């Protein structure tokens, strides 16, 4: 039994190397940071009431009293817009996701017992979990308006004798706007449809980048470990060719992996959404997205492809350099930890938060992490913000060139053979 404990101790010691716990710790730190940032942002969001723009075309006593009674639940921004187009422009200017239009003749309709309708608008400019939360205020406000009208009618003991009509005097017509187009439709359904699309690609890419990085880092480290690299370096081949071939090979393999993953996930998603919503409503939402310009055009796919390609190349060039720090294949997993952090932080933040609602400082830090642009690309392509997407691509391209040159430099100097990270022997 004693021998067993000796063995067990040895095995644990071998597993608990810095190569294992350093990446593990970094992941935990990243989660901690993300948790802190999001909870801080969420608290800020919670302490302020969500905003709603209201266009009162009726300008009656009833509409005025309704608007003022919305104040406890929402911060009302009033506009003198004369139609829904102007209302939506105002929402866009103020970066407010929800708006309500009270049409002319509202008060007369209510007291006259006719059909009363208000219009609720949702602006699709951002596709994070937070955006969904912000849109809820539109629904809440519409429900509140209905309740107040209902109470008014009950209090005044007028209106239709019909009780359902007393309880439901106001019909809410839902509209969604994006890219300057306004269409009738349900914003929540549309948002979940789009989220289904915009989170698939980043998730796949996240997985692929991490795998590709580990692949190339361990390829470099393995060649270092068994000295085949020394043979390669003594051959009459240019060092650039050695670096380029390794990177292209890994790039090629990861692109294939990415495509297969995406095919698989697409298949799975369409199965799931077919189950959840039924085919017909799925088609409706998809048509709505297309009408609003929230579907990828050929150019959009091109942009997305460019971003994906650059992101993988950039990750590979960085991982190649990190791989040079590894002494053997085992430690290759550890050395790519910094790269993983650079991918994880923007991945989780963009998934959870609306960047536009963050402070400028935080926003620019996120923009400066090159891999953020993978995750920012899809929503920005959908909302037609092409300059931002292409600028992100340019930024990644520049960094890629810098890191490739750096990798070539390392491979043509002693560093490739002498670089090493020694966690334990730091003096």
């Amino acid at each position, binding site marked *: 039994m004693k021998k067993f404990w000796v063995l067990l101790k040895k095995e644990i010691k071998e597993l608990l190397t810095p190569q294992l716990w350093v990446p593990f710790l970094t992941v935990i730190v990243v989660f901690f940071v993300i948790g802190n940032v999001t909870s801080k942002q969420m608290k800020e969001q919670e302490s302020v009431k969500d905003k709603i723009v209201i266009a009162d075309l009726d300008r009656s006593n009833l509409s005025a009293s309704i608007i003022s009674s919305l104040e406890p639940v929402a911060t009302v921004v009033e506009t003198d817009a004369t139609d829904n187009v102007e209302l939506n422009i105002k929402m866009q200017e103020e970066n407010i996701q929800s708006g309500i239009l009270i049409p002319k003749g509202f008060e007369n309709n209510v007291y006259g017992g006719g059909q009363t309708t208000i219009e609720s608008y949702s602006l699709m400019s951002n596709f994070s979990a937070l955006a969904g939360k912000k849109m809820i205020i539109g629904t809440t406000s519409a429900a509140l308006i209905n309740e107040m009208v209902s109470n008014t009618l009950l209090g005044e003991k007028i209106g239709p004798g019909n009780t359902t009509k007393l309880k439901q005097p106001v019909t809410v017509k839902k509209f969604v706007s994006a890219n300057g187009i306004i269409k009738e439709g349900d914003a929540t359904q549309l948002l979940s449809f789009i989220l289904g699309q915009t989170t698939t690609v980043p998730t796949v890419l996240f997985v692929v980048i991490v795998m590709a990085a580990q692949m190339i880092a361990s390829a470099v480290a393995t060649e270092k470990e068994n000295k085949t690299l020394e043979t390669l370096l003594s051959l*009459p081949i240019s060092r650039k060719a050695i670096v380029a071939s390794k990177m292209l090979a890994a790039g090629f393999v990861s692109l294939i992996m990415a495509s297969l993953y995406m095919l698989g996930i697409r298949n799975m998603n369409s199965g799931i959404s077919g189950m959840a919503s039924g085919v017909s409503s799925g088609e409706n939402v998809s048509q709505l997205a297309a009408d609003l310009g929230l579907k990828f055009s050929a150019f959009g796919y091109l942009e997305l492809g460019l971003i994906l390609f650059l992101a993988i190349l950039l990750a590979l060039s960085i991982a190649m350099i990190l791989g040079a720090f590894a002494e053997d294949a085992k430690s290759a997993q550890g050395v790519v930890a910094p790269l993983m952090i650079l991918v994880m932080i923007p991945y989780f933040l963009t998934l959870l938060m609306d960047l536009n609602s963050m402070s400028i400082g935080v926003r620019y830090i996120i923009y400066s992490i090159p891999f953020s642009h993978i995750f920012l690309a899809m929503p920005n392509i959908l909302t037609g913000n092409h300059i931002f997407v292409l600028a992100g691509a340019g930024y990644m391209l520049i960094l890629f060139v810098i890191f490739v040159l750096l990798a070539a430099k390392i491979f043509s*100097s002693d560093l490739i*053979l002498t670089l090493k990270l020694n966690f334990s022997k730091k003096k």
Partner: protein
Amino acid sequence: MEKVLEINNLKKSYGSFEAVKGLNFCIPKGEIFALIGPNGAGKSTTLKMISTILHPTSGQIIIDGTDIEKEPDLARSKISYLPEEVGAYKNLSGLGYLELMAALYTDNPVKQKEYVSKALEISDLGSRIRDKLGTYSKGMTRKVMLARALMSQPKLAILDEATSGLDVINALEIRNIIINYAKSGTTVLVSSHNMLEIEYLSNMVGIIDQGEIIETGTVKELKEKHNAKNLEEVFLRLKKQ
């Protein structure tokens, strides 16, 4: 006398540690020169610098008239390097590995064929050459690696511990391959910490200790000069001084 390798005041430091402290020696064409010395003397470091994979901290290396710092690519086409304890791409067969390496040495398909058949002759593994490298014994692997290093008939073959870890028979075989090779015109630089064995292989030796060459000459000269039976004794006498 034509010199294939000329080394002038060669130094190499790893950080603040000076591993090679100003070496000077040259090797005439067709010679087998052995750099011998104890573990950690700086043999591998020197050989790596000559193979262009480490840069000297200072000093000059000239291979067949080419300064390797000025024209590394030209220099690389004149040499081949066999690292000590080199591993293999385990998923390749011996033959596959040799073909890959031949294709990396030259673009000319006729020459590639020539190289591979030369290598097959040197490694002499029969049908096992088609097996995966991962299944080879140490001696078999070393022979394939040596065949790789010699197949291109380089001007200068740099072999780090060519026979280390091999049994008597395999070591003898490899020594004979190298000796025959030198006869056909290739100049060979080998390193070894085994001072007894090296007498069977080379004529000229340089004894290196703590990064410095403490004696050079032919084996015969050194033994006479120090009145010793073998090179090991020569080394021990030198250390006592």
